[in-house]
């Protein structure tokens, strides 16, 4: 299991939290996502054997968010 923290600087309202956390159900290998609008951050626990950090970044970018 791996953990990564991503900065999402263009989360503009609490609804973004729900959208980003929704990736839990859409990406195979994600164990949990905790996003925070206040901190503009997303903490992800994932199984690195099933999904790469790059894939997570791509999925976040696919929702229209910047990621760093």
């Amino acid at each position, binding site marked *: 299991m791996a953990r990564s923290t991503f900065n999402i600087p263009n989360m503009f309202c609490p609804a973004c939290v729900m959208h980003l956390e929704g990736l839990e159900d859409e990406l195979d290998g994600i164990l949990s*996502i*905790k996003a925070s609008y206040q901190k503009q951050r997303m903490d992800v626990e994932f199984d690195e054997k099933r999904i790469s950090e790059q894939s997570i970044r791509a999925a976040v970018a696919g929702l229209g968010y910047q990621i760093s």
Partner: protein
Amino acid sequence: MDNIILVAFITGLTAGGLSCFAVQGGLLTGSIAQQVESTSQSSGKTASSSKKKKNNGRRIQPANPKRPAGMIQPILLFTTAKLVAYTILGFFLGLLGSLFSFSSSLKGAIQLAIGIFLVGNALRMLNVHPIFRYFSFEPPSQLTRYIRRVSKRAESWATPLFLGALTLLIPCGVTQSMMAVAVGTGNPLTGAVIMFAFILGTSPTFIGVSWLVTSLGGMFQKYFYRFVALTVLVLGLYAINGGLVLVDSPVSSAKILRAFNSDPPVSVTATTVAPSPAAPASSVSAELAPGSPLTASDTPPSDVNRVVAPPPPTAAVIAQINVENSGYLPDNLALPANLPIELHLITNHTRSCSRAFVIPELGVQELLPATGEKVIQIPAQKAGKTIDFMCSMGMYTGVFQFK
């Protein structure tokens, strides 16, 4: 009160709709997509996963446009459940507010806090500074996860009904602001009516906004969101002003305007009257100075600042205020010092919050009848003293000056 309900409805109709949709729209469209899919027995991707729209980090999920007939039932169930749930919530918020309405000063403090919350939320929406992000509450992840998963179940009509009620747990920023206003009313029924009016207002926008967002795109969202923020900002400043009035702050819009008001005060002298609660207004003989003299019979009681000359020690002084929908007339009364005042408040089909008459300094809080007369005894005051009066929300104000 009617004004607030109208403001709540218009806020819902304009600002609330998109804001609510941004937070809760996914639930509705996800549920509709599942329903349409299960009804049509189609396979493949659901509407919610195939129709996602990306926009400045916002993902709006339009409903399946191919099956409008199938969408009507879940939309109606969802919005009806939401309407009922928030009306009940408004009742309890008003009830909560009533528990704290011990004095007008405390009410003013609550209103100030609400105003600061609203302004903070508006500045958050305008992205003025990261600190304002803390003016918005985030529901726990476990809760949003549960709601998200329920929304994806293809079940019966009960799903949109349940999801509509669950929106209680994920209120958008504007809804949170309106909930704060409901608390501020301090009245369960008013709280319920305000939330009902607000959610009723959001409903057509909530339903129609997916079409607008898909048709007009990001430009629409960008400007609409700013409009939402500015509306909340105005509501917040309004609440702060009301709060300042209620806590008897030296700074409020009414006091500032009064300070800059260069109109010469209308001085009225009157003879004494007998100390009877039922004394008719005509028992006061009044004379305007400067200006044309008026007799009591042709002096409208509502349009003058009244100075009642010192009567004999046994007499009381009668002052009269007409309580109108738009405020108090007169709203600046000069009264004689060192004499008790009998204040007659006259209402005539008055519906606004001006009926909730408050004199914080004297601990007076009276809900006046829609039409009728209420007499309030004001104890003798020293010369030079000023006492403010107002409606319970600080919207309409006036002042007694003792001379």
